[in-house]
């Protein structure tokens, strides 16, 4: 590992609460090791601010291994920064050059309120899952796990879709702030499995209704979501969601 360091100018979105207007403030990140992760770079800036008795930049993170989905910000207009299939916590400073200026802003969408600085409220995603992103089985009554074979192909596709970490990069990257990639990942995961079949109809209708209700936009095939997704979730899932939705619309009415 190299010990090279770089100096950066940061333009960071500071906003003191949902009702504050917000502004871009400038910070100088000096002697940043190229081996640092992006969030460690922010930690270093925050230590400096704290020592000067200034309010550190608020940002969310937890696992810092790219799996919990808690972190995320726009870096120079890219959700989670410029590297493909990488969460912000797994982005390293070796991808930046000495003297770069970085614009760091929160994920923005009508359905994601800003709590403070880069911290946003993504509870709308939880509400979409609550509308139908589950299989209704109670603990205790399950048949033997091998009672129902599932083809390797379908279970692999289900796993591809289930890899979604719920970070919201898809919404932040979409010009319509649509949550279609998120919703389609969950609908696909469950629709591809035999266990998900009994509720397939209500699930897609209810989840889409809830998505609309929460103020997410529609899909206009921009494909920005797929490009920004740190887990490489394919927009083929959106095609599958559309098929499920059409099937469901023909045979029932939404309950939301």
């Amino acid at each position: 590992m190299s010990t090279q360091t770089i100096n950066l100018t940061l333009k960071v979105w500071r906003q003191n609460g949902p009702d504050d207007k917000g502004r871009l403030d400038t910070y100088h990140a000096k002697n940043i090791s190229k081996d640092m992760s992006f969030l460690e770079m922010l930690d270093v800036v925050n230590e400096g601010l704290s020592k000067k008795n200034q309010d550190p930049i608020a940002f969310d993170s937890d696992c810092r291994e790219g799996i919990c989905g808690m972190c995320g910000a726009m870096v120079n207009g890219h959700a989670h920064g410029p590297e493909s299939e990488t969460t912000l916590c797994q982005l390293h400073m070796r991808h930046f050059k000495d003297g770069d200026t970085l614009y760091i802003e929160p994920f923005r969408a009508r359905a994601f309120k800003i709590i403070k600085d880069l911290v946003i409220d993504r509870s709308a995603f939880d509400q979409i899952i609550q509308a139908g992103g589950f299989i209704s089985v109670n603990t205790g009554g399950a048949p033997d796990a091998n009672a129902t074979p599932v083809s390797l192909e379908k279970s692999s596709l289900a796993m591809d879709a289930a890899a979604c970490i719920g970070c919201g990069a898809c919404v932040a990257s979409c010009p319509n702030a649509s949550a279609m990639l998120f919703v389609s990942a969950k609908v696909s995961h469950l629709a591809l499995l035999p266990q998900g079949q009994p509720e397939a109809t209500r699930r897609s209708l209810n989840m889409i209704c809830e998505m609309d209700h929460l103020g997410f936009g529609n899909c206009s095939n921009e494909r920005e979501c797929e490009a920004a997704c740190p887990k490489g979730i394919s927009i083929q899932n959106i095609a599958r969601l559309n098929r499920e939705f059409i099937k469901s619309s023909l045979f029932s009415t939404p309950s939301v």
Partner: protein
Amino acid sequence: MQLNAHIPSGPLSEKWDKHRFELKLVNPANKRKYEIIVVGTGLAGSSAAASLAELGYHVKIFCIQDSPRRAHSIAAQGGINAAKNYPNDGDSIKRLFYDTIKGGDFRAREANVYRLSQISNNIIDHCVALGVPFAREYGGLLANRSFGGAQVSRTFYARGQTGQQLLLGAYSALSRQIALGNVEMFTRREMMDLVLINDHARGIIVRNLVTGELERHGAHSVVLATGGYGNVFFLSTNAMNSNVSASWRSYLKGACFANPSFTQIHPTCIPVHGTYQSKLTLMSESLRNDGRVWVPKEPGDKRAFQDIPESERHYYLEAKYPSFGNLVPRDVASRNAKEQCDAGRGVGETGYAVYLDFRDAIARDGKNTIEKKYGNLFQMYERITGENPYESPMKIYPAVHYTMGGLWVDYNLMSTIPGLFVLGEANFSDHGANRLGASALMQGLADGFFVIPYTIGNYLNGHSQPNIDTSHSAFKDAEHETGERINRLIAIDGKRTVDDFHKALGNIMWEYCGMARNEAGLETALDKLPELREEFWENLKVPGDPASFNQSLERAIRVADFMELGELMLHDALDREESCGCHLREEYQTDENEALRNDDEYCYVSVWEHQDDENLQLHKEPLVFENVQLSQRSYK
């Protein structure tokens, strides 16, 4: 205080059945009247909340993150064990039980571990029904692999993301109950204190992390599922926000803490590369199947790896353990890496790393084969370090990974405070002195889905249950005390940041209470830690407004508790004058540097009771083995 583990009598294999029959039931109409608080939304918390709500209880659940789906169970990679014996390779409930109790170096309860093995099969059935996309074979049935040196293939997995998929399964069951109105979800809330009324757990005080307000929540019972405390070491593989405060506050209110010093150190992690580092990343231990571990023979040799000739490379595991070689268990591999680095043979910038080299495996099997086996891990390594493991050896070093210790619970998972239950990593119960791979997910879901739904009813129906009123003075006092504690932290207005203190604490714990411990070192740490804690309370700086979203304050509250926990861990490690599993006291080793147990004097669970700020009382829960023979683990 008298400890009673409430282990049912009778033959091992019949204890749980017998116990379930003897447990009191709660009438369905009465379940609606009971409120239960669950703290934490990982595997244990989410599964507990979902299954209790399915039964008809009214549940309130709390998490510190923005969504219940973020809990750190999500980061588990390898898999989940079960005694299904689908591969027909000789597995059974008894064998899973035996492997787990032996792996824990005979410091866990037989009855708990046997129950865990029995329940393991129900977990897999239920998770498949919930839509967890486990790996499958071409014929459509579930795939298994061997893991962590087990002789049978009993591990179920979902690529390298088993924890994620299981957590999302439990989260979906929880979400369904939230939608049905049976569970009330509170996100971005952190438990600040436990509230006792007439010595029973009746509620909690939480801090709303967005507004800074303190809130009172009452219930008939409180279930903690708040995970482990590996972050006492500052650097660990735990998530940034994982902390001990819920457990610690309960300890101060009378819940005993068991085996606090039992910490699992995982051998294959990406090494520390700078003082700015925030956490450590685990690399699957499967890498040791093909990688060879080495360091330069000469201490202080700073040449690049390619300039060190074969004859000057020290393959220390192969030399010392000719039959197991690079595949020795986690604790042995970790200790040997430390030994080499302490002797000056460590590599990399810091000197705290050893090589894990795939050169010979690539020459033998070809790059393609190695890529098929480990491609994703090599990619992850390159992403983090910027180095290509196909061309240069990986650098690895052990890191804190899991805490076997936790709040003491009886067979019903109830702590020494009536009505306070503790599940998952937060309790101490099933892993003894060392946890086997793929056992943590199993325990979290066993506790939440299949144990607590039975045992909590016995408590609720076994004691008179008053109406809970949060205007009771106990709530008022606890809230007031929490407010005062926060005010004291703010009022210090010193010079050092909370991360600075946390790092200093981590250094003490890692140096003296990490992979190897000895009396002199522990005594030294017991001098240093109180000094650090004193400075913390005199020189801490918490910037920002306490009555708002303030992450510095969140960390300060957690680190204050870690400072106290650290001291208890030191006492615990000092008291146990034997080595067992993860706990290596350097004074007690076999000639081959294996952990030397002392079953005559230390075959017990160390159960610490808080008395006041000066005094601790140690209770000993004897471990009785009626079904297994205690033996020395050997890896020669």
